[in-house]
């Protein structure tokens, strides 16, 4: 009997394996993207400008920690990438690209934070599908869109704009790209701005 039980267990698990594999919803990032129609390119009014101080923030991250503006002041230039929502088409392809550009951020003494207005469990599940991201991912879920509102990038449907901010070590905003929400921003202009800020002594 002792020998039969494991064999039966194995047989049962092998029997259910094809059923699990035949799940009609394909796994992973590519198979679970929610289709989104073309939206108005922007739907908010910026509340900051290049030269403005970066509003303070203190947000929870998917690893259980927090990210604060004060973590970076005087230490690192900081790039903040807001994407509108987890599990949507353009957003799901944006951070995997930043994930292979780590060297460039480090060469420019810059840190990167990814933020959406989704809650932590959603963000966790979504970013897990991207592999290991080297940068912290934070949630501006509650109070809903608090930082997005301070920046003036909270859209009327409760998601953020697709936006990039570069903040220097003094806490001054040096580059802003509030992009067409339907398209991914070219990394080129941001990298040029990072290099310019880094070159300043």
């Amino acid at each position, binding site marked *: 009997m*002792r*020998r039969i*039980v*494991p*064999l039966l*267990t*194995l047989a049962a*698990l*092998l029997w259910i*394996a094809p059923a*699990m*594999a*035949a*799940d009609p919803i*394909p*796994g*992973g*990032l*590519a*198979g679970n*993207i929610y*289709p989104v129609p073309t939206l108005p390119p922007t739907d908010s009014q910026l509340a900051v400008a290049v030269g403005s101080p970066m509003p303070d923030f203190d947000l929870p991250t998917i690893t259980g920690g927090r990210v604060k503006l004060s973590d970076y002041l005087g230490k690192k230039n900081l790039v903040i990438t807001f994407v509108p929502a987890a599990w949507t*088409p353009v957003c799901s*392809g*944006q951070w*995997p*690209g930043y*994930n*292979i*550009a780590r*060297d*460039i951020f480090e060469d420019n003494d810059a840190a990167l934070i990814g933020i959406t207005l989704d809650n932590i469990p959603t963000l966790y599940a979504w970013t897990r599908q*991207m*592999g290991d991201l080297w940068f912290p991912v934070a949630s501006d879920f509650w109070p809903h869109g608090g930082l997005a509102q301070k920046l003036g990038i909270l859209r009327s449907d409760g998601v953020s704009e697709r936006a990039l901010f570069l903040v220097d070590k003094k806490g001054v905003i040096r580059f802003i790209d509030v992009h067409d929400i339907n398209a*991914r921003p*070219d*990394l*080129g202009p941001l*990298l040029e701005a990072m290099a310019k800020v880094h070159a300043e002594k």
Partner: protein
Amino acid sequence: MKALALGILAALILLTAPGSQALAAEASEAPGAKPLAVGTAFPDVPLIGPVSPELADSLGIPQNGPTPIAKVKAEALIVEIFSMYCPFCQRDTPTVNELAALIDKRGLAGRVKIIGIGAGNSDTEVDIFRKKFKVPFALFSDATFAVHSAVGQVGTPYYYVLKKTPQGFTIVAAHLGLIHSPADFLADVVAKAGL
């Protein structure tokens, strides 16, 4: 009890093995994709962006484009449609680099060429991808998605295998998603292109 534990462990290994996820997508999907059919002519899309003198010489094209793809000097041309933002393309690149090395090793470098076209990628973004993965073959940009649209708005990575004819390039094979065996892929290229 030990046997039971081993049995369950074996089953769990089988269930979680990569092979059990065969149905999981291995490509970034593109809504509205309509891949071009095998047997049809490949559109004479422009190759955009600078390439090194060595690669330009190998392909028989100028260093700075745009150059119509039909100008590429090759009996068979593998065209990878990729994006630096596509995790599957990132994962596939070491294998494609192996494929390029295998083409050299088999003495086919003068006949079979590989190029990549970065769908929606600017020159800067293509350059990031090239450097990150030490890509040995020529990569071109397609910032406006114009080429991507012309070649069927395919998911990435997507591979078109083309054969040179007097009229230009004709599609002889196509493949969506990761390449698992460079040797099998190259054998297929050689067979389909009639080399």
